């Protein structure tokens, strides 16, 4: 399965996302923000970073990149799309996901291994998890506070579109401890924490078993890749 990873000016984690795709059993395909070409990929990852230096608002200018018109068309046709951190910000700015992301309530950049609960295992990017599974993946952001109006929050909660929720600590003041959400169809998922940084033993969060051995993030990629292969 070909999984495209889009590089925007200022993307940082595009290579990590490509590597995570590979570790998850897929073929990573580098995509460029300035092209109108998805190169026949089967799924798309919008990686973390600081596209356009977070100018205007995080993700705002990238949301209007040439390639985003193709991404929006593909997402609306059901292609799995995952937005990580800045990628999540780009998804809300392009209205593929509802709500918005604002500066952390405490005003500081936060970087930590974050515990999450997986609350919806029916999305393209979470179907390999168990219901209510608790996972730990790194989080690193300055503008990760998820907000939406009450009606949108009620809809997200009611329809099961809250996919990941912060446990123990709400690191950025997100409404309802929301770490990640999906669209109604479940093919588009965005979250602030970074699954691609927890995919390879030796480079992930610490676990009880061993230092840096956490690979909970790998399931995001195997979820999408294995369900694409099952449907191929």
């Amino acid at each position, binding site marked *: 399965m070909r999984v495209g990873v889009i590089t925007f000016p200022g993307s940082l984690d595009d290579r990590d996302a490509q590597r995570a795709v590979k570790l998850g059993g897929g073929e990573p395909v580098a995509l460029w923000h300035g092209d109108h070409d998805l190169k026949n990929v089967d799924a798309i990852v919008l990686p973390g970073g600081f596209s356009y230096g977070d100018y205007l*608002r995080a993700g705002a200018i990238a949301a209007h990149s040439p390639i985003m018109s193709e991404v929006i068309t593909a997402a609306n046709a059901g292609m799995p799309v995952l937005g990580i951190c800045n990628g999540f910000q780009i998804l*809300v*700015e392009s209205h593929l996901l*509802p709500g918005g992301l*604002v500066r952390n309530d405490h*005003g500081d950049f936060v970087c930590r291994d974050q515990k999450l609960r997986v609350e919806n295992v029916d999305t393209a990017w979470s179907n390999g998890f168990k219901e209510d599974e608790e996972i730990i993946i790194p989080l690193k952001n300055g503008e990760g*506070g998820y907000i939406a109006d009450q009606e949108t929050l009620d809809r997200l909660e009611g329809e099961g579109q809250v996919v990941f929720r912060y446990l123990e600590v709400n690191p950025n*003041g997100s409404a309802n401890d929301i770490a990640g959400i999906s669209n109604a169809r479940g093919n588009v998922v965005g979250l602030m924490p970074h699954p691609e940084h927890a995919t390879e033993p030796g480079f992930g969060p610490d676990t009880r078993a061993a230092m840096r051995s956490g690979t909970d993030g790998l399931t995001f990629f195997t979820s999408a890749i294995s369900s694409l292969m099952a449907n191929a």
Partner: protein
Amino acid sequence: MPIIVVEVMPKAEILDPQGKAVAGALVRLDKSEFSAVRIGKRFELTVEGPITDELLAEAREIANDLLANTVIEDVIYVGEARPADDAQGA
């Protein structure tokens, strides 16, 4: 050259950590008569010719589509630079 001004503010219910930090500094400067500060953005769009209704409509459109994210911000002004902008300078 004429400019069209667009002003954007964070929505009232959204926490504005920048404004809060400035308000904290004012307290430390013994200026606590200013009890709250909120920080917004001002865009100045330069146009080649005179400011027409069409240009203003276009500016309103980009204000809502790009310059502001109406989920978290409000567009509070789109128009010509107001006289007060010049008269009340330092």
